[in-house]
């Protein structure tokens, strides 16, 4: 290596100015703080409603690793196939639309797990799931409520869903943290 050039490079690196942070970083942080508070509140109410069985909220989009989901035995599942696999009771989710999960304390569980950037992506016919990294465009999507219909073969879901989900949807909507929509947030992400 050219020693003189190396010295020059070291000098450049030493004096290199900081990169400007992207615009809106501060507002996104504040937004997320608000959302955590909101998720905590809604999670607590859902937990109470579910008699302690539902311990938190779980996000579907980035949650391809189901072992994590089972450690948080509730229930944000926007994808009915995943719901069936998880054998979850309350198949209703509060979603921020990709990239973030909150447990019952409002802690963003994505940041604690390597599956954070995985997506379970329904194909256009809704039958296949494609795993892959989410790259961009997944932040700052409005809240959505994902709503999975009862799955044959999952008796727990069949039994608990109708009454509970209706109340949950009302709760979430009343809390003002969500728009109610028929699809999973994965649709919005992709």
């Amino acid at each position, binding site marked *: 290596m050219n020693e003189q050039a190396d010295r020059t490079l070291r000098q450049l690196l030493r004096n290199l100015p900081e990169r400007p942070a992207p615009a809106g*970083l501060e507002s996104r*942080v504040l937004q997320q703080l608000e959302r955590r508070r909101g998720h905590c509140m809604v999670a607590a109410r859902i937990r109470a409603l579910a008699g302690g069985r539902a311990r938190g909220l779980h996000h579907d989009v980035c949650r391809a690793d189901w072992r994590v989901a089972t450690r948080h035995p509730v229930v944000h599942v926007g994808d009915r196939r995943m719901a069936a696999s998880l054998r979850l009771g309350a198949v209703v989710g509060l979603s921020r639309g990709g990239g973030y999960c909150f447990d019952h304390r409002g802690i963003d569980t994505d940041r604690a797990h390597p599956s954070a950037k995985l997506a379970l992506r329904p194909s256009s016919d809704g039958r296949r799931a494609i795993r892959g990294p989410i790259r961009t465009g997944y932040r700052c999507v409005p809240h959505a409520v994902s709503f999975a219909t009862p799955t044959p073969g999952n008796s727990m879901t069949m039994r608990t869903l109708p009454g509970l989900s209706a109340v949950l949807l009302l709760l979430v909507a009343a809390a003002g943290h969500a728009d109610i929509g028929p699809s999973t947030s994965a649709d919005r992400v992709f």
Partner: protein
Amino acid sequence: MRAYQDMVFSTAARLAGDDAQAEDVAQEVFLRAYEQFAQLRASATAGGWLKTVTTNLTLNYLTRRRRRWRLFSEMAEDGILDLESPGIEWEVQDTLLTNFGAEQRRRLIDEALRHLPQHQRLPLVLYHFDDMPYQDIAVKLGVSLAKVKTDIRRGRAALLSLLRISGLRRESL
């Protein structure tokens, strides 16, 4: 937050080599800072705390990603330009990038950093931007001291090559 956001973002972006991930890390850093707002507010070492948390979070993220996406990373690293090849030895003038303004120079260097392989970029950034001693870098990255030194040296050599290429390209525009 305004006072530190450039520093936090820069640290994360230069380590991660990926702006989207750096933004995520920066968000997470400030969320943690808000959790500890009472202590940090009065602390004279808030900047240092933020920098350390940023570095650790970025490295954690990179470690997780490396484990998970080892296969993809290896494929990506089979790039067109083999930066580690000992055969590549560009002649670089000592007037490196002097024709450029400070902002343009920063952009070129940041862009070049992004193209370094991770095992060179990490120790190089920790050494040159975080002023971390070799030994600490070795511990942090879980590699030998000799490897840290070699990677930093090779990283700088690769960076020079990349800067020369991008500098020439810009000049010819």
